[in-house]
């Protein structure tokens, strides 16, 4: 190998490494607004499998949930969550509640219990998906219950954060802005979401410890 060849090889190697590194460094976080929402396939309470890809062309809401969390309880006891679910599923939105509680947790509920809870609360989501190993939760970086994500009809993430601006257990009564309703109204009207990122609030998601 001549010296010139060696130099150009080294140079191209360096360029590749630097480009690669900067690509990695500047790769958007998985939850970045405007980027493609990570795909997943999960099973619901009735044993039916759902993939995000199945809902292409529809707006999808992901609601991280845990019926043993008082924040979740508050939003269901006030009927706040169900009325949102009802209002927007009626408009063609797919509403998926995702439960990432691990099966070692004291708050873990069996499918049978979750079904009873669904009846008791008159939940109006499209489906509740079981993510006991927390893989999808980690993929979306869901931290709290509730933690809300909205994916538009092109599969892009357009909202992530809290359900509203009232961090607490008022179940929406103290809220001035319901971010999810605001974002869904904008998306359905083909407009840009005014507030696309907020800090979610609630209990921690009861992930499995690795």
């Amino acid at each position, binding site marked *: 190998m001549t010296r010139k060849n060696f130099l150009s090889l080294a140079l191209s190697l360096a360029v590749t490494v630097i480009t690669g590194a900067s690509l990695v460094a500047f790769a958007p976080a998985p939850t970045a607004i405007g980027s493609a929402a990570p795909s997943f396939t999960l099973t619901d309470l009735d044993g039916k499998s759902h993939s995000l890809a199945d809902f292409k062309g529809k707006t999808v809401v992901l609601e991280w949930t845990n019926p043993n969390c*008082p924040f979740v309880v508050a939003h269901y*006891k006030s009927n706040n969550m169900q009325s949102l679910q009802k209002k927007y599923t009626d408009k063609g939105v797919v509403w998926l509640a995702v439960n990432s509680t691990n099966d070692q947790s*004291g*708050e873990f509920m069996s499918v049978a219990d979750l079904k009873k809870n669904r009846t008791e609360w008159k939940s109006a989501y499209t489906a509740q998906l079981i993510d006991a190993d927390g893989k999808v939760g980690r993929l979306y970086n869901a931290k709290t219950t509730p933690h809300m994500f909205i994916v538009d009809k092109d599969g892009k993430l357009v909202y992530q954060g809290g359900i509203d601006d009232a961090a607490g257990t008022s179940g929406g009564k103290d809220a001035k802005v319901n971010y999810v309703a605001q974002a869904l109204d904008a998306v359905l009207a083909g407009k840009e979401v005014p507030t696309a*990122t907020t*800090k979610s609030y609630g209990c*921690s998601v009861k*992930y499995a*410890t690795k």
Partner: protein
Amino acid sequence: MHLRVHCFRWLALMLLMLTAAPVSAQLFQGKPLVTPSLITNASDASKPFTVGVRFKIAPEWHLYWKNAGDAGLPIEVKWQLPEGFTASGIQYPTPHKIVQAGIVAFGYENEVVLLATITPPKDFNASGKVSIKADLNWLVCQESCIPGNGAAELTFGNLSAAQRLENKNLIEKYTSQLPQPLSRLSLKSRVGTKATAERTDVEISLEGDDAVKVSDFFPETFEKFLINHIDIKTSEGKITFPLTPKDKTSELTSLQGLLILGEKGYEFSVPVTAKGDGAPAGNTGGGLIAQDFNVQDEAERLSLAWVLVLAFAGGLLLNVMPCVLPVLSLKVMSFVQQSAKGKDVNQRLSLLFAAGVVASFWALAAVAVLLQSAGSQIGWGFQFQSPIFVLVMTAVIFVFGLNLVGVFEFGTPAVSGEVSATLSRNDNLGAFMNGVLATTLATPCTAPFLGTALGFAFSQPAWVIFAVFTAAALGLAVPYVVLSWNPAWLKFIPKPGLWMVRFKQLMGFLLFATAVWLLTVIGSQLGAEGVVWTVAFLLALSVAAWLIGQYADFTAPRGRKVAVYVIALLIAAGSYYWMFERQLRWREVGVVASTASAIEEGGIPWKPFTLASLEQDVADGKTVFIDFTADWCFTCKVTEKTVLETQTVRNKIKELGIVAVRADWTNRNDEITALLKKFGRSGVPLYVVFPAGKPTEPIILPEVITTGLLIDAFQKASPKNAASVQ
């Protein structure tokens, strides 16, 4: 099975949310989970007082800090105060980091006391009961979370002494867990940011001795960014974490949080000038103490030789400072006694005296080095901040005084008489111990140059501290040695005779006067109650001394002597135990507020020192004058009476609108210690003027000041002149 458990849990939970009764505990499965209460260490509401919101938390559950972390909710406190009362912001003790499956919480386990200062209205009338109420909201989590709420109330006058003591201890405990100012650390910081549309990478670079000890960073809540708290990485003085902007307008303008060193938190608050192009933006952090001063007077760097000369001169001057006078009188007595003996005896004794001074200075230096290496900040005269030390000094001085006025005779080698006997002896040990006593009494009054020299020394390696202390010791001892080696100069002192007995008795009264001065120090440390018990203790000591004097003289049989000494000792020890351990419980109570900040009618409207209010005043562009003082510093008190509280100075302060701040160092105060150190001092007095609008160019006045000097400095620092002075 699962269902039944969960339904029950559910029911319990709903019941909890509905029935959280005021002042009572939040219950979970029949056991108290969170028990809130309000506590205070004040006996009435006439002055601003501290209120603690105390939460007792069941084991393994936790409440949240003001930034709860990734999940959870901060504790919410809503005050219900009587008309005209105001509450400060809540102060949060340093929280713990609780990580569960990668989700981070900042919170408190077992117990926490949040602190606030409540200020009564100016025209507050103490008649009638004052009660303070707080509505509380919290979220308590273990693995599960349960919200709680309740009201806690505190009514003055309803507390037993035992409860007050417990409250006092609790408030002290949690005050000590509050985050400290960053200036307490030897640290410089730089914040660099690298921002793209999707993320902002933050890097805090720390430099200085404490940089590698920083183990974590607990940020406050970000308004415009999201953070995964688990992504905060700390290693080798570098803290890094990525932030996700909430929207396109998100810009990191400042960074607030706590730097964590072990269990302790330090307030970190730095403005950030973000650069989107990836170039790191630098900034040094911290408040007033952390910033660099461009001090207007004294030279900042002093060579070691010059410092040693200053230390020597300072030691020399200690001989004539007001609070060393009793010791001088003691020494004068020694001169008188020794002039009757041979020259070689004088020379030997004088060298032993010098050795005593040097040895005790070395002991001080050793302690200083130890404390310095332990990271504790101390100052010249720090011994006088300990009530135990002051009490021991008072007792020793008092007993010695009794001895001098003739209540009992020394010379009998016995336990209780040993200290005073030793001090008055003219033999080797007596001379040596005289040197020790002279040192002990000299420390509270820092002579002008000694302050600079020691301030310099504290930031130096151990050997320099020893060198400086040695120089100061030699300065203190040298007049004595010189006089002893040139006994010709001793001829000015009259020949021994009956007058000596009277002179000795007179010295006894001088020592009583010293004891009175020490009582004022005790008063400022332990309050009026402390003074009363100290005087009662002195009374018991005098009875013990009298017993010895009357029944255990030279002619007494050995058995009787032993019995008398045992009785005397029992009286002294018993009265100490009963008065201080049972009645005053002084070591538990700790420190009572000092009197030095009391406002005199028509005098300068002194503002008590807090770093926060000082920083506020300086930042507001006001001219600020700070008097660093302490009750035990006689020089300070004299200057205050003769220079500061004069009509001329009072008028000038009023005319120029100067904010007068009294930094009272009677009791240990770390903020004041840090500021003193900042000015290169380790003791009081110190007088500093911050010129209006020029917070980085404070004027430092000499330790001995005159009215003229002070007025000149005020003029120079006043708003219209400060602008033109460079």
